[in-house]
Every structure is written in structure tokens, then in C-alpha cells.
């Protein structure tokens, strides 16, 4: 008698997502990036661990050889490339695959995409701006953008203007020829130590703006490279901007709506990265459960308690994946989801991001429990995903600002 797949112990479960939202080309892109992840990152983890040079080499292959940078930001308007926001679902799949390999690389790459998406969606890509951004996306070597977003303030600096409840870290003042940018100890989201361009959300008396600041500008002082729990690929540092002169072209007005859009893209892509990390953590713990025994002989996965924990790992990731694909579709085609405003979509995106981060962190926490000492040994690599996801979760601002966003959107709160 032939055993069924289940009787034979085969894995029949997948992590389903709505395939109809992705065309053949999107899946091919994802598979190509997935292969890059397997070969350049997962297959070389024991050899390189979190070696920064290796990570940058791998990202260069992705960005330049595989041409991701070229698709994100075409050199000329008429060149082929992703169309924003329609490419959101494709990008979700792509960033899942990057996240499987290394969440830090996914994160710093996602920041570039989010900025590109917002700039293109707002139709503000005049020739001088395009040339400026081309220098990042079309340079021969890998170049990074560091994004300075509003966030927590500091009592020693006094009250600062807030955008969606987040305190702006930098201030612009008008000069005879353009603008002057000032900030003390601004904490970028990413790559403060090695970016070639800073994109700084700043306030000025009449509102807010996005300032594009070359890292070589006089008046920029970088702090020491920060040591973070995870996301090693993002070499971050606090930055002082002391009277940095900017021409008018480098200062783009940033109203509430495009700011929310920027948050939405970051939330979407970073959530996909976290899901990718979760999927790889599942792969690691599945391998462990296939081979380790408990109580003198039974496989871990055949013990009801361990099976329950293993199931929870899967359940968290499964739901997180569905959520992030749904968000991707809502970003691409908000009408299909009945999304009626930027506030609405931003609250949805922030909710998905917070939930996905918590679910994936919970899943990895539980997977580590199954692995005992191997859970915290660097050799097994699962601890890296755990550090990366929690670092990503905090770096994006944690839960509180999102809860306030949701309360504003769903309850009309006005004073929070």
C-alpha cells in the first residue's frame, strides 16, 4: 500500500499568498532574487557570518548585476522600470526574498525604494533632481541613501514641530541663495555612516520639507558608527548638520500626505523583509525538528508540546505574510480595498507593520525555544534573524506612534 504524503511525513504546507496579484514577470523577478539570497547569503552564512564587506558585495550584485537599482529608478523617464504604485505587490515578493537572506540588506535597499517611489509618485522628478538621484542609483558602485525621519525628541533640545505626532529632527532656514539646514545629533533610520546622500525631513516656518543633502557637503559631522543589536548592513551614525547650504532644487516641500506615503512605503517593504526573515527562521527550525529527538527517541515534531510550538511559529508567519501581501495590493490599488484617504492607508500600513514585526519576532522567539542552545549559538543563524527583526521593529519607531496614527484615523483624535 502506498503511503499518503501526510502518512509519509512529507511537508505539504506552504505559506500561501494571493498569486493572482503577481504576474509571471514578478514571480520571475522574485525567483531570481531568491536564488541570489540562497547563493550569496544563506549559502555563505557560515563562512561570512555578518561580514560587512561580504554584505556590501552581495548587495552590489543585487543592485547592479541583477539590475534592481536600474528598475527602481530608471536613468531616463522613458527607460523601463517599475511603475509606482502598481509595482507594490512585485516589490513585496522581492523584499521577502531579500529578507530571507539578510534583513539588514533588505532594510537599506527598501529605504532607497521608498524614497524613489514617493519622489516619482509626486511627479516632482525634474531634470536636476533626476540627475541628483541618478548619481545614487546609476553609479558604477553601490551607493546608499540615509533617511532622517521625525521620531522621538529630546527634552534638552526643546519642543520641535511634529509631523503626524513625530518630532522633526532638523530645521531649515531661508538664506539669500537657498536654504540652510541645522540639526544636532540627528538619528537617521539607516546608513548614516556610509551613505552618499542624506534625505532629511526638516521643518521650516511655513511647513515641512524633504532636504536632499550630499554627504560631502560642508557642515556635516558624522558621529561614531553605532553598534546595533541587528541590521549590521545598516552602518548608522548620528549626524550633525551645521548650517549646511542647500540650493532650492534640493529642498522639496513635504506636506502631510507625501510624508504619510513615505511611511507607507517603508512600512510595506520592511514588513516584507521581516516576513522573509521569518520564512528563513521557519526553514531553520523545520530542519531542526526533522532531526532532533526528545525523551530518548521521538522526533521533536512528533511530541505534542513541541508540535504546538512549531505550529505557532508557522501560524504567525503565515498570517504575517497574508497581511503584507494585502497591504501591497492596497498600496497598488487602494480602490479595491475601499481605502478612501492617505490617512486610512497610512494607518493600515502602520498596523500591518507593527503586527507583522510582532508576529515574526514572536515566531522566531518560539523557534529559538525549540532549538535550545542552538537557538542562541551563532552557528545556527536563527539568532541573527531574531536580532535583525527586533532591531527593525524598533528602528521604525515601535508601537506607540502607530497607535496614535490609528486613533487619529479611526477615532478622530486631534490632540495626541
Amino acid at each position: 500500500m502506498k503511503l499518503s504524503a501526510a502518512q509519509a511525513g512529507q511537508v505539504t504546507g506552504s505559506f500561501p499568498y494571493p498569486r493572482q496579484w503577481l504576474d509571471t514577470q514578478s514571480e520571475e523577478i522574485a525567483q531570481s532574487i531568491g536564488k541570489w539570497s540562497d547563493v550569496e547569503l544563506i549559502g555563505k552564512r557560515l563562512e561570512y557570518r555578518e561580514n560587512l564587506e561580504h554584505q556590501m558585495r552581495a548587495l552590489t550584485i543585487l543592485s547592479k548585476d541583477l539590475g534592481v537599482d536600474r528598475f527602481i529608478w530608471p536613468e531616463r523617464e522613458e527607460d523601463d522600470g517599475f511603475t509606482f504604485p502598481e509595482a507594490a505587490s512585485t516589490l513585496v515578493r522581492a523584499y521577502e526574498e531579500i529578507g530571507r537572506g539578510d534583513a539588514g540588506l533588505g532594510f537599506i535597499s527598501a529605504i532607497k525604494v521608498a524614497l524613489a517611489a514617493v519622489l516619482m509618485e509626486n511627479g516632482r522628478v525634474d531634470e536636476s533632481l533626476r540627475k541628483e538621484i541618478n548619481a545614487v542609483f546609476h553609479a558604477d558602485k553601490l551607493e546608499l541613501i540615509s533617511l532622517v525621519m521625525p521620531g522621538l525628541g529630546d527634552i534638552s533640545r526643546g519642543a520641535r514641530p511634529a509631523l503626524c505626532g513625530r518630532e522633526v529632527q532638523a530645521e531649515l532656514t531661508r538664506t539669500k541663495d537657498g536654504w540652510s539646514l541645522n540639526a544636532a545629533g540627528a538619528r537617521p533610520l539607516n546608513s548614516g555612516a556610509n551613505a552618499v546622500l542624506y534625505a532629511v525631513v526638516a521643518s521650516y516656518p511655513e511647513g515641512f520639507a524633504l532636504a536632499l543633502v550630499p554627504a560631502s557637503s560642508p557642515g556635516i559631522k558624522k558621529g561614531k558608527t553605532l553598534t546595533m543589536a541587528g541590521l549590521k548592513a545598516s552602518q548608522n551614525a548620528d549626524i550633525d548638520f551645521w548650517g549646511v547650504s542647500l540650493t532650492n532644487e534640493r529642498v522639496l516641500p513635504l506636506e502631510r500626505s507625501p510624508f504619510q506615503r513615505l511611511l507607507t512605503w517603508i512600512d510595506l517593504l520592511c514588513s516584507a523583509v521581516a516576513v522573509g526573515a521569518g520564512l528563513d527562521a521557519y526553514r531553520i527550525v523545520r530542519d531542526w525538528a526533522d532531526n532532533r529527538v526528545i525523551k530518548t527517541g521521538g522526533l521533536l515534531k512528533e511530541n505534542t508540546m513541541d508540535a504546538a510550538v512549531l505550529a505557532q511559529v508557522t501560524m504567525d508567519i503565515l498570517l504575517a505574510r497574508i497581511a503584507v501581501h494585502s497591504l501591497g495590493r492596497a498600496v497598488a490599488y487602494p480602490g479595491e480595498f475601499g481605502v478612501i484617504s492617505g490617512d486610512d492607508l497610512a494607518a493600515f500600513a502602520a498596523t500591518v507593520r507593527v503586527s507583522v514585526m510582532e508576529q515574526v519576532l514572536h515566531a522566531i522567539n518560539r523557534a529559538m525555544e525549540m532549538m535550545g542552545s542552538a537557538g542562541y549559538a551563532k552557528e545556527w543563524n536563527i539568532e541573527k534573524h531574531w536580532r535583525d527583526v527586533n532591531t527593525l521593529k524598533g528602528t521604525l519607531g515601535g508601537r506607540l506612534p502607530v497607535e496614535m496614527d490609528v486613533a487619529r484615523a479611526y477615532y478622530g483624535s486631534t490632540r495626541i
Partner: protein
Amino acid sequence: MKDPHLFLRNVSNYPAESYIRGIIRDWADHIAIPNRRSYDEDWQAHALIEHAMKALLYDLGFQKAIFPMECGGWNLGQTDSVATMCGWMFEEVSRADSGIGVAMGVCYWPLIMIAAKPHVNMRLCKEFAPMFVDADGPRLSALCLTEPQGGADIENIDIVKGRTLKTTARLVGDEWVINGHKLWPTNTGGEADLMAVLCTTNPGSENPDDIACIYVPAETPGVTQGKPYEKVGMAADKNGDIWFEEVRVPAWYRAHGPGLDALYFREVLAFAMLSSFYALGPLINTYEILYEFCSQKTLNGIPLKEHDAVAAELSEIVGGIEVSRASVYRLAAMLDRPDIHGARWSHEVVSYGRATKHVVVDRCIKDIERAMDIMGTYGADRLWDVEKHWRDIKIIQLWVGGKQLCQMEGSRFYFDSQTL
């Protein structure tokens, strides 16, 4: 400004408490805390860590504590407050660095078998005490349990009954000859000076008489310590492989003998549940850091601690500290007074310890994750020290059989489960 050591005020009426807490806090604030951000990179060399260990274990003398006074020790093992005093010490040391807390605690742990009343083996204490008491530097001991074939099976003594033990002890004349391979003991990776090795005198046997705990000085021929493993945290606690090849020690190096070694090993496991203190110290320090952070950082122009939503989260953290401390100090009280609470190796005490440990450590991890979330990008930043505590205490959750064995042992006693 609130007393930043609010949660480290005395929990007992013992006059010694203030003194012990005071000298360790001074060590923590002047030696360990100023350097701990560099400990991760020091995981192999232990250049900085050794300095802190020496100051604590040798200069302050804590490595002597467990031994009887007759041997030059502080008699900790023979007091009615051994576990509670360990609580003060482990909390205070782990507030600075739980890896050093663990290294210190494991210095005592294998010696509980021979240095704790009512089963002091004075001959062995006198044999090994000089190694620690008359030393010219820090000395560490290790308890060798885990073997390659099964992580938590050895600690699961009630069900597995030692039948998976592959490390063997053969009595040849008046010597034990030990062969086997152990993984992961704390204070190994080249650090251990004295090891207690759990082995079997009859491979495959379920008879408790065949479980032996034998002491092996690290210099004994045939003992090989491997290099330390690289871990997510707790750099001060080195772990590695240890191989025993035809290792010969005197027959009287066995802790107590047939039946008693297995019995007192259960007591050693109960003491292991005091490891909750290694997680509570970091959580208490996280409170201290959060106090500063939430007073200094603002959201929408208001200090974080003045936001009701943040206050609600902060309240969860202080609640976690208070409730966890109460339950772990209760465990310590149970271990201190077997005349009131029953033998330390009884199912009730072991089960209470297991149940408490997994809930408390889970709570500590959750609360530190809560703190990291409040702190946003600064939570994962080494400059604020919270992420170090988070990485360190995850290790405490996963060892000595991990969370799941704690859950099973908890249920066994409280629900009379027979097969778990």
C-alpha cells in the same frame, strides 16, 4: 529624582544583605557597567571580562563563599539562607552583566552537591576548597551535563532516568575512569578549573544508583576543553565541548554514591531555577535606564513618561519586576528552609522552581522587549545597554532544559501527569 536603586532595596531583615548588595553594587558601578559595552567583542580573549571576574571572585572573594568555614570558605552552603543570599548576589551582579552573574553562580552550582547542608562531603570540600580559597586569581567550576545526542534529556531525570547518558564512569581499582563528550557547560571553553561530571556507571540503565556525579580537576590528564562557542550574548559565560578520554580520578571524587548522586542532582536542578535572578537583574537595570530615557526623550513635545500610553507600558514593566521578584524570592525561601517546605529535591520544590523560572524569564524577556519598543531606535542601540540585556536573558530562557522542560516538570507535580 527617585532612588534609582528602588528595586534593589533589601528584601530581608538580614544585616548582611545591605553589606553584600553594597559591595557588589560598587563593583558593578565602577568596574562592570563602565566596560560592559565592550564585552561582546571580548568573548574569546576575556581581557576586559577577566578583570571584572578577578575583582568580583578573587579580590572580593566570592569564589570562596560556598565552602565551609573549616575549609576557609564563607559557609554559604551551610546557612539557612543560601538561596536568598544567592538571590541578592545574582541580582546585583546580573544588573551589570548577567554573563558574569552566571559565571559566578555556576562557580557554586556544582559544589552544592558537596557543600550544602545536610549532605556536606567534608573530605571533598577540603580537597577542592584550596583551589578557590588559596588561589592567586579567579577560579571557576563547571557542571557537565549536556551531551551531543540529546539536549534536555539529561536534565529530564524523572522521565529519562539517566538512560541516555553516554559519558561513562568505570571503577578500576580505587579510581574512576571516565570517558565521554559533554557540550555547553558554563565556565568551560578553557575556563573551568574544576568540573562535576554527570555520568553513568552502567550505560542504558534507568537505575538511579548508576547515575554518578564525579569531580574532575581540569588539569587531569585526558581532559580536553574545546574553544568557546560564539553566542548571541553573555560573553562572560564561556561554553565549549569537553572530552574525557580515559580520565582517572580517585574513587572518592564521586559526590556521594549510588542513589544519593541522583537524589542530590535533583536539588542541583532546583538551585538552577534561581537562574531567574540572572534575568531579574537585567530587568531591574532596564528600569533604571528607562527612568532616564523616558524622562529625557519626548514625543510630540512631552516627556515619554508623561504620556498616559507610555505610562501604561511602564507600569507593566514595574509590575513584572515586583511580581517576579516575589515569586523567585519565595523559591529561594523554599530552598533555604527544607524543614518548612520539604526537601530541596522534592517534586514540589523542583516543580515550583521550574514553573517559576519559565514564567519569570518569559516575563523578563517580554518586558525588555516592551522597553525596547518604547525606546524605538535607541532600544537596539548598544549605547543604551538594554539590547545587551535582551540578548543575554534569552540565553537564560533556553538553558537547563529550556522553557518546555520547565513546563513539563511544572505540570507533572501539579496535575499528577505520569508520562510527560
